[in-house]
């Protein structure tokens, strides 16, 4: 078996698979070379803490396991801290990962970046809408 026990366990029984109906942010990332696709859903508190993280994945076992671990890694973290999650954090949990499967971690890192970007975009839209509303009421 080329995978560690952790990967196999996470892949078979992902803890964080699914969607968040009214998510504060949603991001999707693709691996152009192998075609893997990961979608991330975040529920972020007003104080900027990631309260819930869930994922959907079309990909190999390593991608599913890495996405599941990503959710654990960012839960309870501030937005800024969630962006600091690194290869090293994944490998510490996953154990060994075959070299040609490193793209699974890279994909997980990318999807959190894209999701946070989405969060800021939504925030910006909200702020603008609020400003328009404020302006109208003046």
């Amino acid at each position, binding site marked *: 078996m080329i995978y560690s026990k952790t990967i*196999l366990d996470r892949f078979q029984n*992902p803890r964080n698979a699914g969607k968040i109906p009214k998510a504060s942010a949603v991001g999707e990332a693709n691996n152009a*070379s*192998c*075609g893997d*696709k990961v979608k991330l859903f975040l529920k972020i508190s007003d104080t900027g803490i990631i309260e819930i993280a869930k994922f*959907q994945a*079309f*990909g190999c*076992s390593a991608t599913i396991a890495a996405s599941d671990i990503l959710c654990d890694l960012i839960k309870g973290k501030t937005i800024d801290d969630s962006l600091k999650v690194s290869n090293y954090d994944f490998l510490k949990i996953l154990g060994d990962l075959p070299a040609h499967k490193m793209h699974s971690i890279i994909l997980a890192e990318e999807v959190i970046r894209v999701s946070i970007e989405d969060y800021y975009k939504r925030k910006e839209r909200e702020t603008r809408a609020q400003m328009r509303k404020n302006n109208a009421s003046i």
Partner: protein
Amino acid sequence: MDRKIYLDNASTTYVSSEVLNEMMPCFNVIYGNAGSVHSFGRDAMAIVDRARDRVKEAINAQKANEIYFTSGGTEADNWAILGIAHAYAGKGKHIITSQIEHHAILNACHQLEKEGFEVTYLPVDSTGLVDLAELLHAIKKETILISIMTVNNEVGTIQNIKAIAKIAHDYNILFHTDAVQALGTMKLDVQDMEIDLLSLSSHKIHGPKGVGALYIKEGIAIEPILFGGENQERGKRAGTENVPGIAGFGKAVEIASKHYMITNQKLKTIRDYFLEQLGKNLDNFQVNGHPHQKSNAILNVSFYGVEGESVLMLLDLAGICVSTSSACTSKSLLPSHVLKAMGIPEEVAQSSIRISFGTNISKSDVDYVVSEIVKVVNKLREISPIKMRRN
């Protein structure tokens, strides 16, 4: 959970007990070097000769001397491509093959391109068939060889070999076919099919690994790719004969060719029952390859919305062994060149697994496999962001 079901027979097969029995004495009793003049050598050579006769009979070659033993299908393919190209380079430097060949052919062709040869890689249609009009169009004055596989190893499509061979000969071009996946499930007759060179492998038909053969019709010149002893394989293929391997291969070929019709019928029954059950229990999948002109042993299925490697891994955990050519399985991360050539969308190609049946699969095995596939696919679909439906 201890149940193990092997559905990767296109990858390799177990060695049958008859074959094993044939091989055993060659390890410690008849262990002579087939090239030796003394009695030990002559005994070993007699075994090689008997195996050669069996291969000759199986493919209806005219003479046993047209059979050359190799280290397997890859060497046979490499040798056919490189050996013919080098022998006939004076006549022309153009070769025609297809985009869906085994890498043993494709990479040998890439080597020839480095040496200054020109290679045309024929496209295939959505069922995996080479278009004969395209073939005619690709033929040039300089074409010396056409190489098209008989049965594709990923999707099982069977090419119109006889027609392709006829076209080749109309233009005075040599014709080679990689018949590694064909042996044992269809009639191979090199005279009737007008084949000039044909590659065979032992371990796909319950023979041992590390042995195969190249049939070269008498009168055809070929350059060697291995250099050494001048007496081995009539000076064309150097290296001490793998006597146990050759003995086993000979027996395996004999059995496979004798029983190909029964084998085929069994495989068809298993495959059809599998598809029937799968269709009853699962939606949104497609079978890749030709609808009927294909091997009964190979079934390539795409389950929409789930990635092939993850299906393979979950099935493996349930004791079911299949294979996939999805990009995630290969270290290159490139999707299957065969499915790509057939114009199958990347997402669908990524969702494919190859199930290759053996005759030892029972009805209850199939029931178990179908129920596990349904479980696995549904589980993965639940967490997939891709929702695809059959058109």
